[in-house]
């Protein structure tokens, strides 16, 4: 494919420019470490870990925090969102609260979370959880609201009671939206990761970047950024695959 090879050339070009510029010493190595340097750092961290903690443990703890948060967000936001989409009363109670907290930058309330919940894993996971909650909730409300009303009328006139309608029509009907919401939530939560690991951590990929920036270890910073970028892409890719498999009817009717 022409397109693919063009993309590869672009990355190759960037790599070459990066290599040339840094190796000819045109830029300071703190501003821009060379690719070999970053690679060497990578190998070093893979083999010896960072701050005496193996690389896989850093990665593991970060993923643990992220997945715990997403998991909690799914099991709370999906029922609340579906309820809010279905019942006007429930919507009146809960919706404005979520609309209000949603735009607030997570860092603004992180200190308060720490005061309330301590410096352990709880406050970190809750921060990521709050970031993930709103997108899933909103997607559920949206999903329920946009279900083809004929689907519901059909079900009723086929003899389905409200619970049956919910279980077999409203829920699957909203699923494509819910899944999109989960993907968005993963993105938002992921982008809050570094903030969450900024306080009282001694592990995690986000913390590694923050720690490196304290000592101006550019090659570690660059490496961390590259790892986070790749990880973000990978997670979204996996979610996309799962979506294609589970929500096979998405976009069809």
């Amino acid at each position, binding site marked *: 494919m022409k397109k693919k090879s063009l993309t590869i050339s672009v990355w190759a070009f960037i790599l070459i420019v990066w290599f040339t510029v840094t190796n000819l010493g045109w830029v300071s190595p703190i501003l821009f470490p060379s690719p070999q340097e970053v690679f060497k750092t990578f190998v070093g961290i893979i083999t010896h870990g960072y701050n005496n903690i193996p690389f896989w443990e850093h990665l593991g703890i970060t993923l643990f925090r992220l997945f715990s948060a997403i998991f909690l967000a799914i099991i709370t936001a999906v029922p609340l969102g579906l309820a809010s989409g279905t019942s006007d009363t429930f919507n009146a109670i809960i919706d404005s609260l979520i609309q209000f907290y949603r735009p607030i930058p997570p860092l603004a309330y992180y200190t308060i979370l720490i005061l309330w919940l301590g*410096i*352990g894993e709880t406050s970190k996971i809750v921060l990521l959880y709050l970031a993930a909650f709103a997108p899933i909730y909103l997607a559920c409300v949206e999903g329920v609201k946009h279900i083809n009303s004929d689907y519901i009328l059909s079900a009723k006139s086929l003899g389905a009671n409200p619970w049956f309608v919910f279980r077999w029509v409203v829920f699957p009907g909203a699923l494509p939206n819910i899944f999109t919401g989960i993907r968005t939530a993963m993105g938002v939560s992921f982008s809050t990761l570094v903030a969450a690991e900024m*306080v009282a951590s*001694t592990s995690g990929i986000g913390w590694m970047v923050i720690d490196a920036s*304290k000592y101006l*270890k*550019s090659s570690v910073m660059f490496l961390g950024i590259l790892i986070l970028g790749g990880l973000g892409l990978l997670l979204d890719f996996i979610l996309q695959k799962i979506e294609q498999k589970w929500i096979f009817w998405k976009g069809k009717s």
Partner: protein
Amino acid sequence: TSTDNNSDQIKIGILNTPNDVAVARNLNYFEKEFPGKQLKFITFDSGVDANKALMSGGVDFATMGDTNGVVALTADIPVKLLWINEICGNNEQLIVKKSSNIKNIQDLKGKKIATPFASTSHYSLMIVLKKYHLEDKVTVLDMDTQNIVAAWKRGNIDAAYTWQPTLTQLQSDGKTLLDSSTLGNWGYSTGNVTLVRDQFLKDRPKDVEKFVKVLSKAHKLRKSNYHLAVKAAAKQTGISVSDADKQMKGTDWISIDQEYSTNYLGNKRNIGQFVKEMQVAGKFMYGQQTISYAPGFDEFNNFTYRFGGDQFWKH
């Protein structure tokens, strides 16, 4: 990077503590020494941000912990070590919760200790832990000072190595195990230092001399009229006079003769003791993997600005 050659401007990175810069600012020493120049003071929470600013040309001078100075050297930031603002004493302490039953340093085993990473306190703590072979037996947490207070209050941590004014907030239910003057006695002095950008030094050596003169004047004032100096520092930093007094008592401000002597920064011929101890700190930090290599004496020698000193320090 914005390397502006605006010779009417001086950008100074400061810490919001009652130090010589605060005294000088409050008593308008800077204005007097730099008439007609535009002075911009930028407050940093830590040497971490100050280093970023030095790197990108956002400030010409910046005050920070000497460990951050080591970071600046290993990160190859084009700066020189110009001045020791203060030597840390009991303003930085290792403090433990009274309720935690920690009687001596050995008891720290298995406990959680918080400290702001990359700070002088962090370094001091690691030295203590190493000396007592506790490195792998405690959990060291990276926290900003404000988070240390919160975590302390909630009982999330058992001990902390931190500085004033945070210490005051911990002292009501805390007990001091050791302070940084002890570390100094062991040969691991720490202190706050001021760095100057190479470019500035090259372009405007006279302004650098004047800058040192201003700070030296503050040091002299502390010797001659301690009370006035404390009042000025308190006013400048917005804290009470008694707090300022407590914090300043914990530190040592050395005279300009001492600064550029073999005890501290060294003179034309010899490297200073303080700089040597910074080199030790560098070696230690490299051992901790926090910096990418351990600079040798030569590098610290080049890093230290002390040769010009002979000409003006007698003012």
